């Protein structure tokens, strides 16, 4: 570990020296130009012009990318949602509200969608009311520097580091090879009675350390004098968590809550990694359904407008809720004072 720190220190020094070197060169050039009388006094307006030029040059590329990668895609989503597909000429044409109408009809009358919504809802409830509090609690343990917290910090973050596909394969093959030793030939993943629960447990197993970076980062910025005051007041660990830590990191916790409806409608299981496009109907979530009508063997260009319409409906339903939730959370949230 010391070697790593030393290496980082070396990198830091080299970086600083390179930066200093170039800065010294630019100052040297400037001084020479001043000496030769080539530098004119900069007026405020010329400084502003230089600043505007700097901003334009620096931001031109990101803005261009934003337009190409986001604005046009959003625009195309709106366009596509109101188009029909011509199978004969293989092109999208016309203007229709049928796609949007079908989405609403499916959402409220199609029995399959009830199942998708139920699955998505269960996943959202678990991630919001079980996973998030447990993540905060785990981060609090790390923040309180319990014994071996450095070790736990590393291990708990492993699921975020190692590719999901690697975990899926390890899980699949451990079910095939190792589980029979304990459970006989009973395969939880292939049994319709247990497969949903098994996948939920798999997902939760890997996600408790997910908030570690954000939550420990926020907790690390709690004013130590506040903690001292808590100690003098005789706060125990739970009181410290409830009265000091949670109000201080409230801003961080409230971020995922603001997008709750989007999260609810797009909650998903790693179905594609486990089953590709052939997951059992009873396991489907809305996001899996939307994904498989665009990608894979069940996809069809005819369904592209319907999938775009679905995205628009999700945005229409979720955006006002997000704004209202944000306003509500800001109003009811504790003040850091």
């Amino acid at each position, binding site marked *: 570990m010391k070697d790593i720190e030393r290496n980082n220190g070396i990198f830091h020094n080299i*970086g600083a020296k390179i930066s200093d070197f*170039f800065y010294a060169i630019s*100052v040297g050039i400037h001084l020479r130009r001043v000496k030769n009388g080539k530098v004119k006094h900069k007026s405020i307006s010329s400084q502003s012009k*230089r600043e505007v030029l700097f901003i334009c040059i620096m931001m031109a*590329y*990101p*803005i261009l*990318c934003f337009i*190409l*990668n986001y604005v*046009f*895609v959003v625009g*195309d*989503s709106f366009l*596509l949602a109101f188009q029909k597909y011509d199978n004969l000429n293989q092109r999208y044409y016309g203007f229709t509200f049928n796609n949007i109408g079908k989405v609403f009809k499916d959402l409220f009358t199609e029995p399959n969608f009830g199942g998708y919504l139920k699955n998505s809802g269960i996943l959202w409830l678990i991630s919001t009311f079980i996973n998030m509090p447990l993540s905060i609690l*785990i981060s609090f343990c790390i923040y309180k520097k319990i*014994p071996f917290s450095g070790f736990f910090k*590393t291990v*708990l*973050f*492993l699921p*975020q580091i*190692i*590719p999901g596909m*690697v975990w899926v*394969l*390890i899980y699949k*093959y*451990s079910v095939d090879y190792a589980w029979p030793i304990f459970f006989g030939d009973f395969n939880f993943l292939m049994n319709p009675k247990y497969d949903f629960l098994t996948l939920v447990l798999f997902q939760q197993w890997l996600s*408790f350390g997910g908030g*570690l*970076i954000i939550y420990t980062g*926020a907790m*690390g*910025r709690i004013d130590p004098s506040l903690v001292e005051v808590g100690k003098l007041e*005789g706060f*125990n660990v*739970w009181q410290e968590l409830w009265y000091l830590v949670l109000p201080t990191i409230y*801003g*961080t916790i*409230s*971020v995922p809550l603001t*997008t709750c409806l*989007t999260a609810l409608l797009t909650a998903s299981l790693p179905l594609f990694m486990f089953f*590709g496009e052939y997951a059992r109907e009873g396991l489907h979530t809305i996001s899996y359904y*939307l994904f498989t009508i*665009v*990608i894979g063997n069940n996809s069809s260009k005819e*369904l*592209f407008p319907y999938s*775009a319409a*679905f*995205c*628009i409906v*999700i945005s229409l339903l979720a*955006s006002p809720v*997000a*704004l209202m939730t*944000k306003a509500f959370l*800001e109003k009811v949230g504790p003040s850091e004072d």
Partner: protein
Amino acid sequence: MVNNKVRENRTVFVAVSVTVLTIYSLLLIVPLLWAVNSALKNSLDLYENVFGLPTKIKPENFLQAFTKISVPINTVSGSRSVNLIEMFYNTIFYAGVGTLVVEFSRCVCAYCVAKYRKYKAMRIFHSIVIVLLVVQLPVALASQIRWFTKIGVYNNMYGLVLISGTFTGAHFLYFYAAFKSISWEYAEAAFMDGASNFAVFFYIMLPQIKATFLALYLLTFISAWNDYSSSLTLMPNYPVVAYGLYKYNSLNAASSVPLQLAGCVLIALPILILFLIFKDKLIGNLNIGGLKG
């Protein structure tokens, strides 16, 4: 009396948390160790001796994984197979360069917004980023495919990397907070020395937030390395390692399990080493704050 109670409470807290986290850690580590151990066996050995050490260590599984784990792709000149070596190249380019493009774009924009707030456009820009974080505009996958095909970047890794430099997302706020915390007096002193706006940004401001930059770069790099869906949806002819593993498994589920587990180890190892080197820079160094704007 109160102090004793507090101490007792703390002891219970420590004991419970250490026990629970130890059990959870074991649940994560044991399957990984099992995978590494199984990757060194042959198929029969794995079947007959599930938990034991390999009767004969087979390190060649790892060498074979590089060539045997492959994914078929269709190009204009016909179909061919992409092996793990080529997939590593794709992943390194896609994750390494792509992440640099996107994080540098966010960094530059956050700097302009944080330090040139006197311009109304910058304040509007800041509001746009925050609104886009809260309000989810529709980005349909179908439209992405249609639009990217139209502009020629669909199934083109280099094109996709080139246009990936958008500034939106939570990372913008991290950069913004980092630049906000640096005093502008450094810049004013540099301007007195004759430094340009570019020199101030590259030689004075950027070096001061390099810890934040590194942490955010690593976070995005890790998620890009682990991302299998980009190859699946937008660049099927440029399979990255995570997608390669998925595709190989779905096409050859019955093939050698130790070989696939060796592939898993090879894919996870570089990112694991990177994490172990930089973990202190990653965890505990970032603060997003709220979404007030």
